[in-house]
């Protein structure tokens, strides 16, 4: 594996598809689909009568329509379900307007909240999603309806990209950042520049003045945790709290973030990356139920 693919590998979940062994296709009345085309990975979730029937999760290719198609085919694979049988399909994610088989599109904010409500259960009130290129903070009610949100996709600080730039600068594989950032004698002060460009300059200075690589990593992880915290703070944290997206796997940042917040993040047996697509499929289900579907 080249370094580039390893890096991408880290920010997305491994490609996978899954079919619910407890559900039989013949029994299903309403079948809907949600397709989330993200910048790095794309997911398709099939919902049967309001439960997740199958899903597929794969790398986003160079064009959105094709990525949507691939994700859907992957979800349908070996399920015996034919695409024509799907009653309603909703596209979401940054490429949502380019999902050819979708009947309509819904923002990732709305879908993420709805999906988190399903994946984590109705107690979840705050969802943080830090991906490769953005950071979303969403508050929702017990039905998964958004009550407050913000999304930061302008600035690389506080996103996976910022972390990648640092890992590159320090020649540390991105997968080792978490562990190595705790392999230090004493927790250093966070890197003070927010801007990734200036933080790089600052880090170079720290190395010159004799800091160990792991210390600089630790200083950046905690700067990142503080940064992400300041974003969630704007919408106000309410328990229970869940973290999704690639950054959830970087414990160097997440453990420090949970410490600042004084909260533990919720756990789930689901692949949290399908949250957006699941939300889209569940919205589709509700639409069909309410008679607002295709037919």
């Amino acid at each position, binding site marked *: 594996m080249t370094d580039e693919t390893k890096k991408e590998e880290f920010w997305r979940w491994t490609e996978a598809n899954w079919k619910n062994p407890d559900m039989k296709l013949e029994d299903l009345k309403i079948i809907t689909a949600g397709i989330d085309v993200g910048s790095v990975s794309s997911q398709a979730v099939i919902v049967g009568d309001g439960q997740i029937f199958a899903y597929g999760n794969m790398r986003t290719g160079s064009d959105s329509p094709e990525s949507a198609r691939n994700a859907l085919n992957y979800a349908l694979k070996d399920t015996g379900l034919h695409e024509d049988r799907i009653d309603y399909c909703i596209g979401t994610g940054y490429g949502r307007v380019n999902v050819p088989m979708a009947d309509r599109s*819904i923002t990732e*904010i*709305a879908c993420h909240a709805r999906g988190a409500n399903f994946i984590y259960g109705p107690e979840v009130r705050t969802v943080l999603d830090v991906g490769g290129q953005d950071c979303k903070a969403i508050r929702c009610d017990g039905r998964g309806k958004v*009550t*407050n*949100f*913000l999304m930061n996709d*302008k600035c690389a*600080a506080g996103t996976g990209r910022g972390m990648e730039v640092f890992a590159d600068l320090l020649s540390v594989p991105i997968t080792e950042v978490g562990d190595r950032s705790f392999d230090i004698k004493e927790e250093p002060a966070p890197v003070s520049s*927010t801007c990734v460009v200036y933080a790089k300059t600052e880090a170079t200075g720290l190395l010159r003045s004799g800091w160990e690589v792991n210390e600089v990593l630790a200083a950046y992880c905690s700067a990142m945790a503080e940064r992400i915290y300041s974003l969630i703070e704007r919408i106000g944290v309410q328990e229970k709290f869940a973290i999704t997206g690639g950054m959830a796997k970087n414990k160097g940042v997440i453990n420090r973030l949970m410490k600042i917040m004084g909260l533990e993040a919720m756990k789930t047996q689901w692949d949290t990356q399908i949250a957006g697509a699941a939300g889209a499929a569940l919205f589709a289900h509700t639409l069909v139920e309410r008679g607002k579907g295709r037919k």
Partner: protein
Amino acid sequence: MKANYGYKDGSGDFFISIDTDKCTGCGLCVEACPNGVMTVGEDENDPFSEDEVASVDETERKKIKYTCAPCKGEGKTEPCIKACEPGAINHSW
């Protein structure tokens, strides 16, 4: 819903927040804004709502610090905020 459009970068927080429960979708802010920042349409983040609400135009979301700068001079109040009768619009900076 409190919808926060904008961003936080190294230089600060720049969010236009719209309280969709207060917003009536009247469009006065759209008329008031000299730079086409505000728009009114269906609530993108609440798919089951039939009401139209204000939001920040997608193309402006990453640059409101700059686009809104002329409105932010001393002693001037932002036209969008002034135009909004129910007081649904807030700026973070």
